[in-house]
């Protein structure tokens, strides 16, 4: 025992001691023995006045807690009468205006762990639902772990495709380890062959034919923010079919949430117009919905990544820009070498593209507005000259589906035709949950028009079928009701109408809320030990987005395997 440390039960000594005497800097005190004997002697009742004040407070508290139950909907009526809650519209689910009732019918009973769980038999159902959520969490963790690697993916062995289509039959389909996985939710198809052109392209990439790049372009609202859902799909597809590049990227972020995985990106000084703001009279918003411009000095720098399995190499960069009167010059600096200049002056506003080829490998590319006029650009595509998949992600934060009608029709058609994706994917609907009843009633027409804007008439043009497409329904949204989180009733209506619109247009459909587990999924995903849904009950966490991406991937692959099975001898023509 050291002499310089005070005993812990001697406050004066502690105060006199060095200022930094800590928990373990004190000496052990000799504690008096505590004798647990002797019975108390005073058993007289307490004076009544002892509890008067606290008792009166408790009585008032109980009265106030019980008061809202005195008459049906008393607190809801009060809320409506002072205007903090509105009367329900005809045909629209009413808001729950009750604000003062601590317990509402339908909520778990008090002392649920004994009464509800055991005496009312609710335990088994809840435990099954909890087990499902736990499985989903484990899946999310496994996916995150699987993709958190810097070991590069091996490229496919390149196979020369048959040129005459009759001699060498393609190799038979080689089953993939993912084929045995359970598919949580299957795709709904308007016909068995609705996605066959896409699967044919995928088969060519799968076999490894030279030049066989399968392109998928996906647009969606904020559910796709930070590239999480699209990167999940990109990762899964590229892991299976080959990494053919990052795909489409904007020149400047339209908002703080624009962030793509698998690429390093910095930007400065561009002016931009984002489609939902309808800020360009010519309605040329570019493939990604955001067009940028500068009179000189603005720049964007892109770099491959080295700490991930994907995005490590480029073979080419394709700049998407607008030729226009008084257009300026674009300067491209690749790896600090000799710059390349692209002249953008032209007679009229016209979409143009410029491809910069490079050796397949890691690169750094700077795109700069080099003056001599105003430069206007729509985006840049990074690809590789290897068989594989490219999955473009074009998130349109805050967009209603109808905002896609802001695109100039001819401009958008030219953009899509140039990109020539093998599959168009749409993931809108989250913002559409707030549509008025009138717009909900015409929701299928909104989708019909939007789909036609991107791919033309559903029946095709001049015998050429419309591009394959897939609608992914919005995720389940939650709504707080007392102690519970229930699914927003608007979700079921919107999903139902999206389904009809998709199938009518010849698109496949993926029911995301059903895949998540149906009614109440948002609440269960939110309250998981490692949440899969964010606190706003409308957006998924990164882990949740990984799961949804994986579910869509599994659904697509189930149909792909079925396609390969029913056409084993067919040689997909190059």
């Amino acid at each position, binding site marked *: *025992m050291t002499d310089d440390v005070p005993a812990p039960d001697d406050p004066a000594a502690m105060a006199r001691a060095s200022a930094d005497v800590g928990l*373990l800097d004190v000496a052990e005190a000799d504690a008096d023995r505590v004798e647990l004997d002797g019975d108390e002697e005073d058993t007289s009742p307490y004076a009544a006045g002892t509890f008067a004040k606290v008792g009166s407070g408790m009585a008032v*508290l109980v009265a106030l807690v019980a008061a809202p139950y005195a008459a049906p909907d008393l607190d809801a009526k009060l809320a409506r009468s002072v205007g903090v809650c509105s009367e329900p519209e005809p045909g629209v689910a009413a808001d729950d205006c009750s604000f003062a009732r601590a317990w509402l019918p339908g909520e778990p009973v008090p002392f649920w762990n004994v009464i509800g769980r055991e005496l009312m038999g609710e335990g088994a159902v809840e435990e099954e639902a909890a087990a499902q959520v736990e499985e989903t969490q484990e899946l999310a*963790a496994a996916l995150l772990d699987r993709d958190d690697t810097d070991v590069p993916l091996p490229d496919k062995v390149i196979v020369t495709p048959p040129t005459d289509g009759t001699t060498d039959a393609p190799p038979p389909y080689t089953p993939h380890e993912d084929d045995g996985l359970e598919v949580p939710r299957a795709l709904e198809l308007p016909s068995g062959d609705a996605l066959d052109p896409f699967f044919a392209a995928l088969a060519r990439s799968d076999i490894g034919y030279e030049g066989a790049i399968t392109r998928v372009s996906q647009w969606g609202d904020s559910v796709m923010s930070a590239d999480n859902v699209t990167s999940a799909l990109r990762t899964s597809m590229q892991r299976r079919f080959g990494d053919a590049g990052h795909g489409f990227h904007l020149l400047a972020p339209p908002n703080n949430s624009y962030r793509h995985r698998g690429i390093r990106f910095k930007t400065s000084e561009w002016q931009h117009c984002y489609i939902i703001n309808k800020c360009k009279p010519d309605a040329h918003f570019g493939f990604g919905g955001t067009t940028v411009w500068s009179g000189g000095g603005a720049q964007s720098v892109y770099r491959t990544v080295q700490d991930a399995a994907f995005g490590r190499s480029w073979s080419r960069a394709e700049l998407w820009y607008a030729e226009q009167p008084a257009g300026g010059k674009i300067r491209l600096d690749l790896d600090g070498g000799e710059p390349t200049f692209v002249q953008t002056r032209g007679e009229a506003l016209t979409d143009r593209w410029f491809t910069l080829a490079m050796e397949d490998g890691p690169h750094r590319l700077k795109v700069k507005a080099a003056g001599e006029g105003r430069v206007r650009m729509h985006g840049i595509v990074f690809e590789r000259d290897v068989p594989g998949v490219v999955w473009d992600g074009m998130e349109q934060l805050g967009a209603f589906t109808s905002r896609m009608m802001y695109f100039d029709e001819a401009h958008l058609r030219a953009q899509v035709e140039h990109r020539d994706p093998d599959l168009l994917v749409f993931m809108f609907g989250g913002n559409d949950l707030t549509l008025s009843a009138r717009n909900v009633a015409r929701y299928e027409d909104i989708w019909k028009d939007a789909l036609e804007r991107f791919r033309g008439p559903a029946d095709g043009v001049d015998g050429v079928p419309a591009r394959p497409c897939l609608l992914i329904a919005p995720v389940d949204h939650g709504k707080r009701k007392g102690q519970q989180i229930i699914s927003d009733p608007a979700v079921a209506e919107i999903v139902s109408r999206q389904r009809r619109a998709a199938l009518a247009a010849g698109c496949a459909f993926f029911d995301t809320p059903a895949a998540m587990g149906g009614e109440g999924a948002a*609440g269960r995903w939110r309250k998981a030990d490692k949440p899969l849904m964010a606190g706003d009950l409308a957006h998924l966490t*990164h*882990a949740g987005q990984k799961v949804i991406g994986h579910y869509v991937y599994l659904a697509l692959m189930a149909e792909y395997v079925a396609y390969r099975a029913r056409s084993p001898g067919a040689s997909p023509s190059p």
Partner: protein
Amino acid sequence: MLFPTLDYLLFVLPVLVLFWAVAHRPGARVLLLLAASYFFYMAGPKTTPLPTPWYFVGLLVTSTVLDFVCGHQIYARSAAASSADGATARAARRVRNGYLAASVVGNLGLLGYFKYTDFFLATATDIAGALGLSWAAPSLHIALPLGISFYTFQSLSYTIDIWRGRLTPERSFLRFALFVTFFPQLVAGPIVRASELLPQLRRRPKLNAVRLEEGLFRILKGLGKKVILGDWLAGHFTDAVFTNPGAYTSAEIMVALYAFTLQLYADFSGYSDIAIGTARLLGFDIPENFDRPYQSRNLGEFWRRWHMTLSTWLRDYLFFPLGGSRGGPVRTYFNLWLTMFLVGMWHYKTGTSWNFVIYANLHGLAMLFNRWNRTRDRSLPVVRKTMTWGAAMLALGVSCTALGHVALGLPFYSAVGLGGFSVAMFLLVAVLPTTGSPLNTALHIGLTFHFTVLSRIFFRAPDFATASELCQRLLSWDGRLLRPDLLPWGLWAVLVFGLAYHWTPKTWVDGRLWRLFARVPGPVLGVLFAAMALALMRILDGSPKAFVYFQF
């Protein structure tokens, strides 16, 4: 059962009324409180994830019976153990030690199984992977019984104090069972020792108007802290950042760390306030658990102010029995490190394995530094001092760099940054005088505060990968500021107020605010509590978050 819920209100009000009616009758009050405590443990509300099933109360009963029996058996041989006859004394001591071992092994064995089995299995998998073996231990997903980390330590204090001769056993099993299960502090502390609570349970509860009001005041304070400063911040900010740090800038992550630091204190100290207040309403006193810990000038003082009942428990039942600081320097430092390491590891949560190993070691090593800095010889010759310090700083920098690069997987330049930062902080704290001007004190407080803030990365991150990402995001500062809509103005106000309040004099709340509260008439208090309940219903995220420390 959670405190800020309708369930607790429906439970505690009738229990209080019934208790006050029978408080003067020893047998009746023990029976009532015991039944209420077991009901409190079993009958919680529905939460997500689901609460542990009610039949886990069997573990509580097991622990209670085990320690009651062991305590009596140990005491029964106390006289014989100090007999003049050597053989008799030895035999008695063997039996006493055997019962003590049964109690310790039984209690810690249960705790170890339920709390640390998955940790050891995950660690075995990690080691196998590091050795190149493709073997993975099964994950058993063992449900953690509510409060086991607390009631285990609590009942162990009974048998250990009897063995040490500092306590005589409780004759009444029911009274002892009540000590173990006393509901105000059963599931998340404060850890109350047998010598503190059992004597009170034998006496007439101290009930008077002033003490009852004090109890209400503590409950109101605790509810405000827990829900406004704790849950609200968690639900609307910190949870999102720690779930997906990639979506936030470096500055926003730093703000989230400050917010979590406030949230953790408010959550746990708020719970302790409610527990202490409820006990006061029943006429009992349980120990304080927090003493404005962020005012600490060093880590030693911090652990004297934070979760005091746990840290003093480990000090009295582990550090001192190991020899404390009575041995040589090596033994003293080992005892210090082990005690603080176990304090840190006590906080382990399933799935976070290496996070808490790092957290525990950070605080353990910081305590070692604290002691060394306080006791070192500052009169060494300049040459020797320069050479010693130079070598030590080099070793520290290299170690931290290696830890960052190898263990945390940080890029090399970030790991070098970590090493440099560590050396700079070490030098700064070592150079600063331990006492001095208010500015010096403020610097010490600031450094200690920021050490706890940054170490909370490993406390809060849901897994090791996220902890590593958070470190990386802070070390590779992106230069971007806070987005304008990061937090609503109300949460900014809560954050600033909450942190600022911590450094205000305690008399502002415990003196002035208390005197104001005491003047409020009873019915108005009822309205005040009803208003607080309504506010909590609106603020809480559908249902309240379990106290952070429920996870332990």
